[in-house]
């Protein structure tokens, strides 16, 4: 019985790490700040949750499982708040979301888009190499 729980726990831990890795891939491949924040925060929280559940199953019903529960509460509290802060900062800095297929919306804020993002610097609606 213990071995089955350990096996399921191990599978969940591996699944959680794969989910976090997928989040990293998403950050690299998505075209714009807001979609990247979405990819990073969702997969971060979900991956951490899966890993914590897996570790809880492996350690059984002990004090450590209670501590893992507290860590989960802390992660659920702070990661979405950090994503909100990032999106807020991006909005205040003047990033507008890309709407449609790789085209910048013609608005007053688009001219203030940060030059560090290589794709927005071109400004003619062509996407860079993914």
């Amino acid at each position, binding site marked *: 019985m213990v071995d089955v729980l350990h096996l399921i726990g191990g599978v969940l831990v591996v699944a959680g790490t794969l989910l976090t890795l997928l989040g990293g891939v998403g950050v690299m491949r998505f075209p714009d700040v807001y979609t990247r924040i979405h990819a990073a925060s969702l997969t971060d929280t979900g991956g951490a949750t899966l890993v914590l559940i897996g570790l809880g199953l492996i350690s059984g019903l002990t004090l450590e499982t209670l501590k893992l529960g507290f860590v989960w509460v802390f992660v659920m*509290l702070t990661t*979405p*708040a950090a994503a*909100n802060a990032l999106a*807020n900062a991006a909005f205040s800095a003047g990033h507008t979301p890309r709407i449609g297929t790789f085209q910048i919306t013609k608005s007053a804020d688009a001219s203030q888009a940060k030059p560090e993002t290589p794709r927005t610097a071109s400004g003619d609606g062509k996407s860079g190499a993914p």
Partner: protein
Amino acid sequence: MNDIALQASFALNVALLLMLVIVGIAIARSRSLLASILLLGIYSLVSAAWLVVMDAADVAFTEAVVGAGISTVVLLGAILLVRAGPVRHDWRMTIPPALLVLGVGGLLIYAVTGLPEFGDPASPANAHVGRSYLIETPKEIGVPNVVTAVLSSYRGFDTLGETVVVFAAGIGVALMLGFGPRSALSPPPVATGDHHVVLRVTAKLLIPLIMLYAFYVQFHGDLGAGGGFQAGVILAVAPILHALVFGLRETIEAIPVHAVRSVAALGVLLFAGVGLVCILNGGDFLDYDYLFPPSVEAMIPPGLMGDPDHAHHWGQHFGIFFIELGVLFTVSATMVTIFYGFAGRAADEQEAAS
């Protein structure tokens, strides 16, 4: 069972070090200052994970809070004040450093092959002084956390010097950047709509928990991982988070500048004062066996701690308690002073511009 556990630990160690090398190369190649600073924060966090694999729990604590917390905040404050653009990469400037680095690196790698192999328990570093600390601490000090015992008692004088260095750095930053006094007198900022409600609610939930956690780490420093330096930095994070979310003016009203200065000095005074009390009672500087005069020692109930050396173990326990408190005061107040310096300068510049 033996081999698999050791091999897994070594594989984890290799993987984390390779991640650190990749992040280091990314920092070197990055053209944006903001990106290099955030990558440095990631570097510190991965180092903290590596330190846990290396059984250095106290150091992992410190590296995580200092590297990913205070260091990132101070660097971000600096680039805000400096208003820097992207870094210019001049390929001609890179050739002499590259040659120097390859030469020195090659020499160091050649020298390092003479070191004992990694993890060797019989190496001169691990077999003599380190081992004797592990053997003598339960008998002479009676504290489970050997790192705290060495830091506060065996090498207490060293720690006093480090505390004074931290205090002096705080004074240096305060002298160069000021205390941000004018921001406390400025009118309250106009409310610009409730963008930040999520941050405000989360910060209000987290700030008391952070302070509670800092005190837990402080007072359990001799039983588990923890101690004055870690607790001081964690305690400083609470006012910094408050200032980032609610504005520097509110934080300075809550924790005024003169109070922070006084607490920093009080910490060093407490630490050195404990040493002086030991001299007055007939021992050497910071020799906690002489912390209590014989009249007080006679009042300590016998056998309370269950060991025959209870009298001088009580001296050690109280000595460690007071000097860790001194370290907590100085480190937390210095980090807050440094933050006030950088943030106050930015607020002063906005004042001068408007």
